[in-house]
């Protein structure tokens, strides 16, 4: 799996931006209140990069991640993924790209309780058209082995520990061989030991060639990444500037 992921990744030369976002804004309208969650974001992530996104609560990290993951659409701005403009795609097309290019890892794991470990990992593959069952099975087992959960295929999520659940969630994200893994505070619901383990897993995946964009507010984990992006109030800011701004707000 690692081999093939790398070969797919190398289709685009390393260093070429996988994600290119420019002047992106997102406004939420609720009950006559406008929330400017993102305003004028410029961001590019290269193939094979490991980016950590940090910033105070409510600054727009999750919003940005879900736009990158095509779960949401920007209010304005441009976004190209793998060289393809994706900000104005319809729901079905976004579903397709999400399924093929994106691997999600959530803070609360978001496994489906009625499905077994195996079925949870298989789920995104079932949304692909014309994937032979044998291939599917091979991919699922490959992914589960990669995260060390192959011995728990018949278990239900409720029968696993939090750390194990999150590893299954990682396997689910890997199974589809996505261009990028998006992780929104993947350690948020884990104790520190399990948190470390998941972080290590991500680092290994990165070393094997995966592109990762991870939201975290934990500076220790942010240091694992190659690059840190700081968000403040819906804008990307430099680290020094963030410190200054944080000092101002706390003052």
């Amino acid at each position, binding site marked *: 799996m690692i081999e093939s992921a790398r070969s797919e990744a190398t289709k685009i030369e390393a260093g070429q931006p996988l994600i290119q976002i420019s002047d992106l804004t997102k406004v939420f309208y609720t009950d006559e209140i406008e929330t400017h969650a993102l305003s004028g974001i410029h961001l590019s992530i290269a193939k094979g990069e490991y980016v950590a996104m940090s910033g105070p609560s409510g600054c727009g990290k999750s919003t940005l991640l879900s736009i990158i993951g095509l779960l949401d659409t920007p209010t304005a701005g441009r976004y190209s993924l793998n060289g393809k403009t994706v900000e104005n795609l319809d729901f*079905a097309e976004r579903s*397709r790209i*999400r399924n093929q290019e994106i691997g999600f890892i959530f803070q609360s794991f978001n496994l*489906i*309780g*009625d499905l077994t470990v195996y079925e949870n990992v298989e789920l995104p593959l079932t*949304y692909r058209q014309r994937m032979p069952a044998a291939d599917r099975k091979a991919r699922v087992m490959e992914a589960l082995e990669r995260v060390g959960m192959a011995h728990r295929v018949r278990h239900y999520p*409720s029968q696993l520990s939090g750390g194990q659940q999150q590893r299954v969630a990682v396997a689910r994200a890997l199974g589809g061989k996505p261009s990028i893994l998006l992780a929104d505070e993947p350690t948020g619901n884990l104790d520190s030991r399990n948190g470390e383990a998941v972080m290590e897993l991500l680092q290994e995946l990165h070393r094997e060639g995966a592109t990762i964009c991870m939201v975290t507010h934990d500076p220790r984990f942010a240091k694992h990444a190659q690059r840190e992006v700081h968000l403040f109030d819906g804008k990307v800011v430099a680290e020094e500037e963030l410190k200054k701004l944080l000092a101002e707000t706390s003052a």
Partner: protein
Amino acid sequence: MNGLLQDFRYAVRQLRKSPGFAAVAIITLALGIGANTAIFSLLDQALLRSLPVKDVDRLVILNYSGSNTGRLQSRADGHFYFSYPMYRDLHDRNSVFSGMIATDFTQVGVQWHNQPDLVGAELVSGNYFDVLGLQPAAGRLFVTADDVVADANPVVVLSFSYWQRRFGSDPGILNQSVLVNGHPFTVVGVAPPGFHSVVMGDTPDVFVPMMMKAEVIPGSMDLEDRRSSWLNIVGKLKPGLSREQAEAGVGPLWSAIRSDELKEIKGGSENFRDRFVNKSQLFVLDGARGFSPLRSDVQMPLLIVMGMVGLVALMACANVGSLLLVRGAGRIREMSVRYALGAKQKRVIQQLLVEGLLLGLAGGLFGMLLAPRVSSVLITMIWGGGTGDLPFSAKPDLRIMLFNCGLALLASLLFSLAPALQFWRPDLAPALKQQGMTARSGPLRFRRISVAVQIGLSLVLLVGAGLFVRTLHNLRSVNAGFATDHLLTFGVDPRMAGYEPDRTFALYQRMFETLRGLPGVRAVAATNDPELANDNETGNVTISGYADKPDENMQVEQPNVSVDYFSTMQMPLLAGRVFTDQDSAGSQKVAIVNESFARHYFGDPQQALGHFVANGGGKGVKPDIVIVGVVKDAKHVSLREPVTRTVFFPYLQSPELHAMTFYVRTWQQPESAESTIRRAMQTLDANLVLDTFRTMDEQIDNNLTAERVIALLASGFGVLAALMAAVGLYGVLAYSTTQRTSEIGIRMALGATRGSVVRMVMFEVLWLAGISIAIALPVSLLLMSAVRSQLYGISSSDPLTLGLTIVVVTLVAIASAMLPARRASRVEPMKALRYE
């Protein structure tokens, strides 16, 4: 106790907080209770309730087996009737009955203060009231002496309701004279209130001694005719005697009576003699509930309706149950908080029960209000249009009502308990711990089962509706064999206005002339044996040159008709000629037979011409009536019954004249001719009593009442059931998709398209519907084959109806899934996955 009151107040507040839920639950329960009570009350009156008379357990009905060769007048119910000499012999010579009464029902014209009135009359033996142990409401009832000598005692007893209705309960009417069919009769008394007749379902307005039959049924001279069967016998067993003992005891007497009868049948083979006497048996049947041609008429329809109501009630329970279950599931949090605050299990459950109780009570209350309305609608639907009292009361039976309310209470208590069981051992930790991570669907299973039951029941009801509607349609489109449109019919019996037979003939001639002269009238005809009137009157024939096989049934219809009958009715002539004015009293006697008759006895219509026939059977009969024509077959008794072999005679050559039914073929809408005809007849003779006017289409509709009611109710209940199932299914899906919002969000994040989410919901629906249909289909096949006899022209497993019903049920399921599926597909993955 204090807690209970508090719970009660809280329950009221809870129900008022969700008025939609409360309304649906209460309406559903009320419908179930109301319809059930109404139907059971009718069923009880028609099938179960005993006559309001003394020693009712000792009453028996007599019936017999063996062939009947004489004149037979029956109500098309398969019951054997007796002749008066038979009754007299049985009555005088038996040793097992302490009393035995004879009865027959007819219509008479009663005239009082120059006001003619057509009423029902029961012709009874003199001991009738005595044997039944009834006391008069006024005056006196009949005694044996009233009924000894033919035509000697013109006395009449009024029914209680006729006395109220017509005479304002005036005791002054006693010993006064009224005209019955033109003959003066003295009113001697009034029957007790609440008593209608020993014949269940009959509601005579007057009672007349049997010996007055010639006056009451003009033209009938058969009181002493052993071979004319027309009356029913109800016996009263001697105390301590069982029906079996009575049957055995009366056996020899019965054989003797049959032998006497056989003596009057000239001819017949040895074999026939043996069968006529030795193989014939007299049966003594339970009579506590009265002899009832009506009962056998309505038994099956009522049972079917009851079955439908039962299914609907079951659905109502399932529906209310699943409603209560959702509510319960939606209140887990509330219950959890109660537990957390230290509430005891008992209190939490008590509170749920109080709510269930409240719902059940409200449903029961509305159901009670509904029941009499449903009853009266049903009664008028089935028996409306007749004269006099309706045979059944719309007042619901208290016991049945209480029983149904109890049932509804029990059901709602039980179902309100079901969610309580979910909290029996509250384990709150997992729900809190796993919040947002997993959505398990445990409590859904209850609801799925309840919905599956509802889908299944609605399939059963819809299959029934389909089959009954098509039965009705098939019957309606049966070719009657004559033109039923633009045809107005009414009956007249001139002897009710005091006409003697010799003047009757002239009256009919004048009526024909007058009617033909009226504007808008195309043709006029008359018969003494009305078409499609659900009664048959057959008699034996003898055919010259036809060697009847031993014991061959030679019973045929023998209507006497007017000259223009076939052209007016538009019954096509197949061979020979129709009647003409030359076929009069003095000339060669002629007959026209129908196709079935011709084919059966002669093989071919043409062959029948020129043969001679005679009414009556036996050696002495000389066939002297020549067959001059053959007409095409037409339905006679009803659209359902097969065609009977028929010989038509010109009424001008008939030895005795009967009451006639007139048919007027009109140019315009036949209804509009009624007033013109009534006025014209009034001018002809103001005393003439004209029987109810009906168009032939109305007559047919009337004929099909049971079928119509069943088809109507079955469709109504079928639609109701489908609606309930749809609501139930919608509820389950709406609930389950809301429960699964986050799951759907996850799936979408992983690449599920809207289409695949819709498919997911639809799959759940189709799976549920498929399983329910698979289970319900054999059940409905079984139920439908049990009511086969009520179907016409369609098999109980008609594939088209079944297929169509399956399609309809599936479509209903899909339709009710549409909204939840749409809602599920609109889930915003972002919102579904958001957590704070």
